[in-house]
């Protein structure tokens, strides 16, 4: 091969499609070898850079160090304890309020039941009964 390599032949070479003619030409032609290096070198640098960059990034994201700030830990513990105390107090207060409410409801219900039981007539007949009582009193 007497002519220089074409752009397509350089690309084919880089993609692994190599002919013995091209190989021989690259050995003999310093211009073509330099031209090939102008493309091959950046590609090699890119590969190395991506490999080193990703190795570093992977190490960082996989083995993320857990750092303990003990001052912060104590603040968190104290804050949690205070929050728990408040919740418990609210819970107890709520429970006692609920208990008082239930007691009042029970008393009202009991009063209604006693009133119903002590009635001499059914509730529907109460107006007639009241009238009779009034008439009797006269």
């Amino acid at each position, binding site marked *: 091969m007497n002519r220089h390599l074409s*752009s397509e032949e*350089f*690309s*084919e070479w*880089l*993609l*692994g*499609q190599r002919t013995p003619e091209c190989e021989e030409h690259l050995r003999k032609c310093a211009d073509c070898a330099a031209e090939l290096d*102008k*493309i*091959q*070198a*950046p*590609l*090699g*640098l*890119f*590969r*190395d*850079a*991506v*490999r*080193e*960059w*990703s*190795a*570093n*990034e*992977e190490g*960082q*994201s*996989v083995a993320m160090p857990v750092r303990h700030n003990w001052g912060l830990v104590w603040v968190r513990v104290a804050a949690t304890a205070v929050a728990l105390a408040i919740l418990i107090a609210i819970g107890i207060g709520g429970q006692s309020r609920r208990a008082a409410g239930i007691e009042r409801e029970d008393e009202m219900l009991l009063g209604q039941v006693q009133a119903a039981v002590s009635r001499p007539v059914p509730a529907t007949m109460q107006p007639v009964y009241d009238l009779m009582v009034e008439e009797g009193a006269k």
Partner: protein
Amino acid sequence: MERVLPPELAPEIAHTVPQIRDLADFEAVVRLYRPAIFRFLAASVRDPQAAENMTQDCLLRAYRSRDGFRGAASVKTWLMQIAVNLLRNELKNARLRFWKRTQRSSVDVSSAGEWLADRRSSPEAAALARQQVAAVWAAVEGLPERQRTVFLLRFVEEMDSLEIAAVTGMKEGTVKTHLFRALQTVRQRIEERT
């Protein structure tokens, strides 16, 4: 650290890299292939946290469907296939939300090049290396989804076109076409910016 191979040697040496043939020891599978899955996803979405979540998802799916693995492809090809499908579904299902989130939290285009700086012989060489990496990184970012996927599988994961075809479900000819177009774009961007 994983050995870095020059692209021209990748297909030959790939056969000498230790590979796991079955899934009996799933922990070993995770140890060996997790970095490649994360790397591919991180370079695709440029969001390490999103890539981390997707990597976990990928490995979980692989674990759940491990009984269905028949060994027709290599374990790595099978895992990368799951990763590519996850990526594709993520893009398809929530394209706008995903890219908005990714662009908001993504890495700076030039930051990947910083990793190379300490190995260069001079400040000028380091600056040139960063510039070249930034040019490729920016070009890859602008590629259509399929071209970006095949480009990363070829030039970062060093897979050959047959493996990429198995991983992506494309025909080998389609893979070559996408690779060719992606490479043309990247070359053009390198020439413009360096």
